C-alpha cells in the first residue's frame, strides 16, 4: 500500500516568509509525528498528533511553528517568518497507535528539505 507522503520534497524560501509543509500519513494510522533533521541537532521530535489532537507539542522550537491535522489524516506544519536556522529536513511519520499502546514502529515519509536563504 501507499506509504507516508510529504510535499513539497524541496522548498527554498527567503528569510521572513511563511512556509507550509504537508504530510499524508498511511491510511488508518491514528498517530502522526513531525521530526526535524538538521546537521547540528540530529533528529529531533517536534509534535505528536493522536487523531486531530496534539497532546504533545513540546518539541516545537518557537511560537513561529504550528501544526494542525484535519480529518484524522493530513497534517500541515507551518513555519512563520522563517529564519535561516529553520533550514533542515522535516520528516513526518505515522503509526498505528492508541493511548494504551506506545511501541508500534513509525513509518516515515521522504521528508521536505527546507532551505531558508
Amino acid at each position, binding site marked *: 500500500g501507499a506509504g507516508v507522503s510529504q510535499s513539497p520534497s524541496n522548498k527554498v524560501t527567503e528569510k521572513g516568509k511563511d512556509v507550509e509543509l504537508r504530510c499524508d500519513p498511511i491510511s488508518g494510522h491514528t498517530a502522526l509525528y513531525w521530526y526535524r533533521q538538521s546537521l547540528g541537532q540530529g533528529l529531533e521530535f517536534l509534535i505528536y498528533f493522536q487523531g486531530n489532537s496534539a497532546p504533545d507539542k513540546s518539541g516545537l522550537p518557537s511560537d513561529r511553528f504550528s501544526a494542525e491535522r484535519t480529518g484524522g489524516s493530513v497534517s500541515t506544519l507551518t513555519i512563520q517568518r522563517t529564519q535561516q536556522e529553520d533550514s533542515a529536513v522535516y520528516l513526518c*511519520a505515522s503509526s498505528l497507535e492508541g493511548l494504551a499502546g506506545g511501541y508500534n514502529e513509525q513509518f516515515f515519509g521522504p521528508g521536505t528539505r527546507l532551505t531558508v536563504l
Partner: protein
Amino acid sequence: AQSVAQPEDQVNVAEGNPLTVKCTYSVSGNPYLFWYVQYPNRGLQFLLKYITGDNLVKGSYGFEAEFNKSQTSFHLKKPSALVSDSALYFCAVRDGRGGGYNKLIFGAGTRLAVHP
C-alpha cells in the same frame, strides 16, 4: 533523562564481513528500542525493535540486534555485509514519559560504509 548514544560516527566494513553498529541507551522504566536506516535523500526505514522477550531480535534485510540489559546496549549486527547496506543508521528509544505513545529519541546516527 532518556537518551541514546551511538559512539561511532562511521563504521567501515569489507563486503562479506560481519558488521556491528553500536548503541547504548539510558531510560527510566522498560526500554523500547528501535533501529532505523536512512538511504540518501530518503526517509527513515524501520529495521527492527525490541519491546520484550528474546534478547536477540531479527529484523529486515538480514539485520539483527542484541538487547543487553546489564550493559544498556542494543547493538545492530549483520553476519555478512553487503555494499548495498551502506547508509546512515539510527538507534532510537521510546520516550515513555508522555504516556502511551511513541515519541522517539534518536541517537546521532552512524554512517556505515561497506567496501567491495
